[in-house]
């Protein structure tokens, strides 16, 4: 059976308040993804719409967005794994094409978080855990990752300064990304002196809620070759879960779902971590990026922070990570985030990432995590 490629990618700028409706947000991302392709809307056989529920009032958003993009009467449906929804959508698109059911599938991710106050959004995210046993204690998304941070610090001696160095790097690249919400470079001192949200995580250790949409156009090999100049091939896919409850976690110094998803993706692609030229990882918090270095095999367990010490994850380093600014700079419109990561990798592999191009990048990886490590998707792309 033939291979499956990404032919087009797009995203809106991510912002604190977009001022438009969810359908209009999605249209903008779709427009960028379809721009310059040798196929039109009529060639799209199906769409997969990805977001986390309960931010806007629209029930069943897939039908609404499919209509607005001009895709009716072709099939559409909704996919949800909270923050990793759109790479789950990509996985489903791959399998629909691989099965021969469709030739071209659009994966549309979106979130308009500004429909809710910050505290209400925190409450929704708190309910993205076990609502009988854990949400009633006031568990929040940052608190869940803070538990990982504290455990990592206790076991490996990771420090708040190590974590701050993730933000220093990502704010550096975010400043150059026109699609990013936060475009100011931050110093180590500014990050370390920011207010504590949930110890040891401070304001600048956390990504911000945002509005935004992303779109990935996926196609079978024959269509892909005529649809665009440089198809980017899906070489490896991995997906895994961990328990919904924090009490069920057997490991607190790494994300089991990411480790397992990475193993699957490397195996499918037939490559090793050292073969990756550029990576996008789910840095919803600074500690998350350090965990990702280790879970993806870029560093041994406990040695993730060392990569930052000698700038190995900067654009000229051994393994450049989040050189578009990451979630920390871009903002994190939940359902759109995975698609934005894929967009960055596709642009890197095509040599179009003018803001921070990794020279000669041929193999890229996207690590997209849902919830407090409940869902993990790892996607490997090659030129």
């Amino acid at each position: 059976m033939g291979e499956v490629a990404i032919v087009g990618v797009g995203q809106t700028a991510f912002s604190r308040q977009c001022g438009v409706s969810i359908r209009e947000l999605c249209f903008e991302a779709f427009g960028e993804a379809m721009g310059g392709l040798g196929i039109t809307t009529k060639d799209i056989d199906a769409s997969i719409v990805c977001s986390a529920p309960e931010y806007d009032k629209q029930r069943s958003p897939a039908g609404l967005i499919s209509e607005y993009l001009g895709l009716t009467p072709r099939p559409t449906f909704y996919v949800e794994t909270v923050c990793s929804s759109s790479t789950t959508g990509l996985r489903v698109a791959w399998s629909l094409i691989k099965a021969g059911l469709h030739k071209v599938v659009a994966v549309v991710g979106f979130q308009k978080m500004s429909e809710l106050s910050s505290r209400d959004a925190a409450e929704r995210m708190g309910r993205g855990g076990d609502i009988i046993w854990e949400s009633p204690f006031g568990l929040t998304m940052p608190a869940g990752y803070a538990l990982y941070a504290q455990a990592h610090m206790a076991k490996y001696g990771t420090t708040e300064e190590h974590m701050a160095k993730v933000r220093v790097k990502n704010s550096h690249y975010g400043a150059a990304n026109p699609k990013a919400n936060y475009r100011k470079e931050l110093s180590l001192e500014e990050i370390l002196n920011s207010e504590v949200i949930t110890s040891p995580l401070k304001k600048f250790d956390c990504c911000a809620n945002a509005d935004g949409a992303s779109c990935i156009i996926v196609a079978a090999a024959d269509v892909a070759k005529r649809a665009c100049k440089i198809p980017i091939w899906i070489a490896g896919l991995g997906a895994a879960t961990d328990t919904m409850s924090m009490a069920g976690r057997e490991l607190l110094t790494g994300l089991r779902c990411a480790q397992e998803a990475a193993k699957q993706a490397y195996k499918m692609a037939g490559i090793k971590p050292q073969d990756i030229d550029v990576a996008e990882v789910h840095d919803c918090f600074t500690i998350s990026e350090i965990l990702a270095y280790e879970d993806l095999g870029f560093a041994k367990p406990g040695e993730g922070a060392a990569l930052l010490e000698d700038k190995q994850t900067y654009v000229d380093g051994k393994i450049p990570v989040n050189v578009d600014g990451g979630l920390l700079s871009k903002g994190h419109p939940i359902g759109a985030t995975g698609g934005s990561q894929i967009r960055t990798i596709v642009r890197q592999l095509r040599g179009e990432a003018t803001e921070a191009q990794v020279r000669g990048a041929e193999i890229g990886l996207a690590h997209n995590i849902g919830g407090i490590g409940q869902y993990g998707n790892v996607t490997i792309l090659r030129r």
Partner: protein
Amino acid sequence: MGFENFGTVSFTAEAKTADFINYLEAGKVMATRCKKCGGSYFPPRMDCPSCLSSEVEWFEVKGKGKLTSYTKVNYGPTGFETDAPYTLALGEFSGVQILARLSRDIGEKDIKVGMSLMVSPLKLPGSRIAYEFKKD
């Protein structure tokens, strides 16, 4: 009674594990164990996925546990605004791990990963009930 008065804010009431609340009112924090395979569960569950059996029994989480990790939450979500700051923690007890808050009696400087803990019921204002970790 179900889970309607559990924790600071509860989000659902009905569950087969509702007896947990009765035990809690009587001063006990309980977990469940599958009678067939002996697997123990916290959060408690009345259905064992290993055996596809619903023959489970309650047992009390007693004795010393160990603090696995913690975080002091300064920013509370809706419903928890006036509660913050509070410290969430994971504690490891014989065969089960539990998420709860650390007692406000424990000073911030005294908190250390690995420290010894007990888990005990906690009455909250407005006839609400939860459990918390206390210093051993």
